[in-house]
């Protein structure tokens, strides 16, 4: 107990997050194994999307909370990951028969491709700052959506075939249509499992905590807090912002693959501006830069609307109001002064007791 109390704050916070995720996983698995009806049909169907959204929230938190840049196009990276990953999974269906291995391969590939696009987009985007950066990420998100909606990809014995805008692929015997433009992707089997999602969340946490609590992470936060001061002590702001952005894009890509492989069918319009905003809501409600907050917010806000179907109409309205109120409360100087005063008084009491 004493050791936990004397740990560094960052270590304690990451330990708490890992424990939280592992306990949640164990409880859900126990319920699924021993309780009749498992965790209920509603939650059962949401397990994989929850893991995907938790990973998305963690990824976006790395950009918005840690690196301090607002990205409004993160659903675009999720889209790239979903389409690239699921195409690979379908193409490898007969070569790699072991499902978890195939999923892992697809996720790695989805992450690499999304990370690569993150780099391509990051080069122009990270030269801007503030509102301009947000708008350009939004623009890229829309561009990705338009482009992906018009991709037709198929594979047969002769190798992959690709066409754009209209379907000109002529697939041979036994060929598979992987991406069908506006119709999207249809998975013949859903290989994403809750355990895979759990592993992905743990990997994402591991990557993010190690990044944040390293020299690189401190440089990223220094660049966030004061760009000019960071530059003056020799931190290359663009480089560190790029590290955060690409890592985040890659994680989003892996989350996209997980999400896509858990769906029977999905289209590019699923990953639109609204999805980007939804993930932003998770991050803001969980607390900017606070990873366990993101985990809880993403899980709770994914499951709540499913559980409260009858209030579905009011759901987005409530999200909007909560988003505004949280921003107003966290930026209220009176509230902050009040909290600071209470802390001061406590400090004085402690010192008086000594």
């Amino acid at each position, binding site marked *: 107990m004493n050791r936990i109390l004397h740990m560094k704050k960052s270590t304690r916070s990451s330990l708490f997050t890992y424990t939280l995720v592992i306990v949640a996983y164990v409880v859900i698995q126990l319920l699924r194994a021993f309780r009749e009806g498992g965790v209920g049909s509603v939650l059962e169907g949401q397990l994989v999307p929850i893991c995907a959204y938790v990973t998305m929230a963690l990824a976006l938190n790395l950009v918005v909370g840690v690196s301090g840049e607002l990205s409004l196009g993160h659903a675009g990276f999720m889209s790239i990951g979903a389409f690239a990953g699921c195409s690979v999974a379908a193409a490898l269906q007969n070569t790699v028969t072991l499902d978890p291995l195939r999923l892992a391969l697809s996720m790695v590939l989805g992450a690499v491709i999304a990370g690569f696009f993150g780099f391509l987009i990051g080069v122009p985007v990270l030269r801007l700052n503030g509102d301009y950066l947000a708008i350009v990420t939004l623009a890229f998100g829309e*561009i990705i959506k338009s482009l992906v909606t018009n991709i037709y990809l198929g594979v047969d014995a002769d190798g992959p075939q690709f066409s754009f805008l209209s379907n000109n692929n002529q697939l041979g015997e036994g060929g598979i249509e992987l991406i069908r433009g506006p119709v999207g992707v249809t998975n013949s089997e859903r290989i994403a499992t809750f355990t895979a999602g759990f592993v992905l969340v743990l990997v994402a946490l591991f990557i993010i905590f190690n990044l944040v609590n390293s020299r690189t992470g401190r440089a990223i936060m220094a660049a966030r807090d004061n760009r000019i001061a960071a530059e003056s002590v020799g931190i290359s702001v663009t480089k560190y912002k790029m590290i955060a952005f690409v890592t985040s894009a890659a994680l989003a890509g892996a989350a996209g693959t997980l999400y896509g492989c858990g769906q029977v069918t999905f289209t590019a319009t699923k990953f639109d501006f609204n999805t980007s905003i939804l993930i932003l809501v998770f991050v803001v409600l969980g607390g900017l830069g606070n990873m366990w907050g993101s985990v809880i917010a993403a899980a709770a806000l994914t499951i709540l609307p499913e559980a409260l179907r009858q209030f579905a*109409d*009011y759901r987005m*309205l409530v999200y909007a109001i909560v988003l*505004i109120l949280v921003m*107003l409360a966290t930026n209220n100087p009176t509230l902050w002064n009040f909290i600071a005063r209470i802390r001061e008084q406590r400090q004085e009491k402690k010192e008086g007791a000594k």
Partner: protein
Amino acid sequence: MDITIILDYLIRGLSLGSVYAIIALGYTMVYGIAKMLNFAHGDVIMVGGYICFFAMSGLSGNFEEGSMAATVVPAVAGTLAAMVVCTILGVVIERLAYKPLRQASSLAVLITAIGVSYFLQNAALLLWSSNPKVFTPVTGRGSLQVGPLSVSYVTLLTIAACIIIMLALTAFTSKTKMGKAMRAVSEDKGAAQLMGINVNATISLTFAIGSALAAIAGVLYMSAYPTLTPTTGSMPGIKAFTAAVFGGIGSIPGAMLGGLLLGIIEIFAGAYISTQLQNAIVFAVLIVVLLVKPAGLLGKMVQEKV
């Protein structure tokens, strides 16, 4: 390529561009004075469209079918109602959501603005349902025949409205006391306050003007693209913002130029490249502009001070 077809596209581009320009004026004025991106501006357009729609459909029954009054009175009344409601809405939004955040980081303000935009869309969804409403053009459906070209009245009205608004705004900001106060506040808030300018009132006034313009833009946009849903406003809103950035944000002639160019680019991209990629091309333009000329076509580059 036929010259008539090109001219036709050009006029359609100018018309769409005029709508973008009117919306972009609202963005650019608010950005100039409050240094914030009013993300909810596009949704004010949608509200304007709905108000005008209900006012028009409520009034049109009272007039003789086909008479002059049956077109003019509901259209004028609808537009005025939309302007009044949007002006109030804009000022209320500013007071409740943006004013407490004057000192906050731009990230916080932007997220709040996104929240307001979401709020308006979903409130509209609850109030007016997601079933699309079909808007009747404010000018009726006729068109003017100029040689081989046929130009609809809506197009003419849109271009005329844009020119009038532009001239009026330029005169307002350069000649009147309130307009000068607006320019002073956008230059330096603190100094303007020391000179006895009521900064809060000036910002409210800017929001009022911007929202009234959004209402006009909403009516004109709906007349050209008549399907009205709660999310109608977001696309023209984002594109108009693109136009404002394109022309140089904070600059009134810039918003005008950016809007017109963007409208023309959009129509020609749809006609000669691909309608499916129309939006992607418009956004690609934004990205290229920001990279090559981050301050926009007519904007001033401001050096950051340490």
